[in-house]
C-alpha cells in the first residue's frame, strides 16, 4: 500500500486522540486552569513552524546552488506549511495570554520576535503569490528565506536573553509530557502530509506551465 493514505489515516485518528489527551487525559494545571491546555497545541505548532522555515531555508540554499525548480518548489511548500503552523501559534498564544496575563498581546521579546519571523515569511509568500514567476523572483525569494530564517535563533533565545515574561523551560509532569509529545508526533505527521501535498501542487503547476509553453510554441 502506498504510504500517503496510511499517513492520512494516522493523522486523522491521531488528531482525535491528541485532543482527548490534551482536554481529558491530562489533569487540570493548578495555577492556570483550563487555559493551560492550549499549551499542548501551541508549543508543538511553534516547533513545526520553525521546522517549516528551516526546511524552506535549506531548500532555498539548495536552489541557489543548483537552480533546480524542485528545490524552489520545496522552499515555497515548506514556507506555506510553516506559515500555517505560525498562524496556529499566533492564534493560540493570545487566547492563552488573555486568560493568563489579562491582555491579548504584550510587547514581550518572544512574542515580538515570533511576530517578526511570521511577517518575514508572510512577505516571502506575498512575493511568490504576486511577484510573478520569473527566475529572478525565485532567486530573490530564496535569498529572502536565507536572510529571514536565522531570525528563529532570536525567537529561541528571546526569553532568556531579554528577560521576557513568556513561559520558558517549563517543568512538566509525566502525563503532561505524554500529551505534549504525542501532540508533537501527530502534528509532525500532519506537517509531512501537508508539505508533501504543497510540494506536489507546486511541481504540478510547473508541469502545467511547461506544457502551456509547449502548446503556445507549436501554435495550438
Amino acid at each position, binding site marked *: 500500500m502506498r504510504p500517503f493514505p496510511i499517513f492520512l489515516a494516522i493523522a486523522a485518528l491521531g488528531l482525535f486522540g491528541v485532543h482527548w489527551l490534551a482536554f481529558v487525559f491530562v489533569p487540570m494545571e493548578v495555577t492556570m486552569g483550563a487555559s493551560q491546555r492550549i499549551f499542548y497545541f501551541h508549543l508543538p505548532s511553534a516547533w513545526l513552524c520553525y521546522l517549516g522555515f528551516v526546511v524552506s531555508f535549506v531548500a532555498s540554499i539548495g536552489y541557489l546552488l543548483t537552480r533546480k525548480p524542485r528545490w524552489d518548489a520545496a522552499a515555497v511548500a515548506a514556507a506555506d506549511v510553516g506559515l500555517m503552523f505560525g498562524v496556529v501559534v499566533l492564534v493560540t498564544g493570545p487566547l492563552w495570554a488573555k486568560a493568563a496575563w489579562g491582555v491579548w498581546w504584550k510587547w514581550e521579546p518572544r512574542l515580538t520576535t515570533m511576530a517578526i519571523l511570521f511577517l518575514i515569511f508572510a*512577505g516571502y509568500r506575498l512575493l511568490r503569490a504576486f*511577484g510573478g514567476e520569473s527566475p*529572478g523572483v525565485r532567486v530573490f525569494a530564496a535569498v529572502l528565506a536565507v536572510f529571514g530564517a536565522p531570525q528563529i535563533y532570536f525567537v529561541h533565545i528571546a526569553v532568556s536573553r531579554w528577560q521576557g515574561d513568556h513561559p520558558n523551560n517549563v517543568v512538566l509532569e509525566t502525563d503532561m509530557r505524554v500529551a505534549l509529545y504525542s501532540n508533537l508526533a501527530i502534528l509532525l505527521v500532519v506537517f509531512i502530509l501537508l508539505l508533501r501535498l504543497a510540494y506536489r501542487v507546486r511541481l504540478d503547476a510547473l508541469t502545467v506551465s511547461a506544457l502551456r509553453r509547449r502548446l503556445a510554441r507549436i501554435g495550438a
Partner: protein
Amino acid sequence: MSGGMRGDGMGGLTAPGFLGTVRLVLAKDLRTELRSKELFATLLLFGAVLTFVFAFGFANDPVTNRKALPGALWAALLFTGALAVGRTFAREAEADAFTALVLSPADRSAVLLAKILGNLLLQVTVLALVLPLLAIMLRVDLDGVVGTLSLFLLLGATGFAVVGTPLAVMAVSARFAEVLLPVVVFPLVVPVLIAGVQGTGMVLGTVIGDDPSDYLTLMLAFDAFYAVGGLFLFDRMVSE
C-alpha cells in the same frame, strides 16, 4: 577629480580592482544623481513632510514629544530608506543597462558595495535634515546628545542599507516590486529599529537605563552579519 577616476578604470585595458570598481560605480551614481538631483530633492522634501506628519500626529506637550522623538526619527529613517533603496537599480533598469552592469567583468560584490554606500550617503544626508527639523518641530532639546544620536542613526541607516540594497534587485525582475519591497525589507530590519528606538530613548533619558552601548553592539553585529551575507549572496542573486 573625475579625470583621475576615468584614468583608474578606462585608461588602460586592465580591469579596475575591487576598490576601483566600488569607486567607479559610486562615482557614476553620484555624478548622475548630482546632475538630476531627483532622488535627493524628493527625499529631502519627503523627510520634511514626514516631520510635519509626526509633529501633528503626536500630542504637543514637551514630555510626550521627547518620548515620541525616537519613534518618529526611526520611522522617518525607514520610510525614506524604503524610497531610496527602491530606486537602487532603477536608473540601470530604465536605461536597459542592468544586464550590462551584471555581465561586465567587474566584481559583483564591489558593485553591491558601491550601491550600499550610495544609499547610505543619501540616507545620511536626508537624516541630517530630518533630525534637526524634528527636534525643532517637536521642541526637543538635543544639547549634548547629537553625537550619540548621530552614531545610532548612522548604524541604523547602515543596517537598512545592507539589508535593503541587495534585496532591491528584486525591483528589476519582480512585478509589483515597488509595493512588495518595503513589505519584505521592514520586518528584516526590525531588530535595528528596536535597538535604535530603545537606544536613542536611553540617550534622550526617556527609556530607563544609562548604558546604550549594548544596543550599539547589537546594531553593529546586525550590520556586519547582513553586510557579509549580502556581499556573499549577491553574486548568486544576479548571475542569471
